[in-house]
């Protein structure tokens, strides 16, 4: 066991900066996908609670398909499939679009659950005060629902960090891709254990603080009631 750590120490200057840069890329992709998911998810949620079947059913279908198929397949369709049809993305934007569209289904469900958890009386009161439905949503429902949504949204962000690992398959230069490249390109097979351990460390450095935030938010939610 000591040799393991001695080797880790020796190779540290070679592997740490590479993986650190890759982590920056992971964070970048994660934030990009999060923004896409948060915006697109709102559209999905509003369509799902709409009165019109023409809006409701497509959103339902979208959510179901996105949640029923692996994110890997979706990303492959966007990256390899669309390029076959003539629409080309670079790996990073394909990853952001793919993970974002996948996330929109999950985030949409979170939004919907949050909105539906607010008592009907709140909308009715707002409407009877002469607010338009859009205003009632903006000023009455969403501010209250936001408190309920924050903890699950934070949990979703954790899932998203872990999901970014799969975009190594389309050669986006994030943690897992750089790690595999380090091992293969430089023939560092004997220290592959150290490299992957460091990968795990970087992922934990991203997910553990987030899960603490999720715990805090969960407690705060109880207090806000």
């Amino acid at each position, binding site marked *: 066991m000591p040799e393991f750590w001695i080797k880790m120490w020796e190779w540290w200057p070679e592997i740490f900066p590479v993986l650190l840069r890759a982590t920056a890329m992971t964070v970048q992709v994660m934030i990009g996908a999060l923004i896409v998911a948060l915006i697109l998810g709102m559209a999905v949620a509003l369509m799902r609670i709409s009165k019109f079947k023409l809006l409701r059913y497509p959103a339902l279908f979208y959510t*179901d*398909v996105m*949640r*029923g*198929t*692996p*994110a*890997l*397949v*979706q990303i*492959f*369709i966007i990256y*390899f*499939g*669309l*390029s*076959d*049809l003539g629409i080309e993305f670079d790996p990073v934007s394909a990853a952001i679009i793919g993970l974002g569209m996948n996330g929109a289904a999950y985030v949409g469900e979170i939004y919907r659950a949050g909105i539906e958890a607010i008592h009907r009386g709140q909308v009715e009161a707002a409407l009877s005060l002469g607010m338009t439905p859009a205003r009632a949503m903006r000023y009455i429902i969403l501010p209250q629902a936001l408190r309920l949504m924050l903890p699950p949204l934070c949990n979703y962000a954790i899932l998203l*960090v*872990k*999901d*970014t*690992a*799969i975009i*190594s*398959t389309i050669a986006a230069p994030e943690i*897992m891709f750089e*790690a*595999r490249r380090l*091992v293969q390109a430089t023939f560092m*097979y*004997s*220290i*592959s*254990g150290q*490299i*992957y*351990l460091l*990968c*795990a460390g970087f*992922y*934990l450095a991203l*997910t*553990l603080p987030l*899960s603490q935030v999720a715990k805090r938010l969960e407690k705060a939610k109880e207090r806000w009631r």
Partner: protein
Amino acid sequence: MIDFLRGYEDYLGGWLWEMGIASLATLQLMFVSFWLACAIGMVAALIPMARIKALNLLVKLYIGFFRGVPVLVILYWIYFALPEMGYEVLVVSSYTAAILGLGLHGGAFLAEIFRSGIESLHKGQMEAALSLGMTPAKAMAYIVLPQAIRVVLPPIANFAVGLLKETALCSIIAAPELMLRAKDLASSSFLPMHAFVMAAVFYYIMSFPLMRAVEYLEVKMGKGLRTG
């Protein structure tokens, strides 16, 4: 659209057969790793009940680590790192590595689900069972767990959906399953869009009943359950 469907002309029959067989392999992989995860998760959920500090810490580390890292890292560790580091005893086939990786990862999630299920029961249930003269083990087996099942079934079904989708990752370490087959077919036919869309359809067919089961269980098991 029509042009797109034309692409399937020469391949549809063969692909349906190939992907159908591969779907069975995916289901098998999911099934085996599901039970492995259940076993690991149950052990990890019950150990803290024994109140032994060292074991407790170990379980905490296990859950914290395996919940915090992507499955891919675990798969790489088992399949690439251990053999490459020279532990020849630990060389396993990609299929075994996939089962181990998904099982270890899923075990950490199920442990949390089981624990919250057990903790959701009123403490009085355990106390009543003990005061009737049951041993703690008996009280757990006959009083607590049967009631906890109600609470944990919906999240377990949800976990199964997630597990089905995670099996797709095992194609990266070349475990024989649906996604790997789809990649093969995509590269041999030069029709990636067609192959991956068809793979998505197969995945959807497999996850659809599970997702409906989650909804059904949430309604059914939620009846008469104390909430809040």
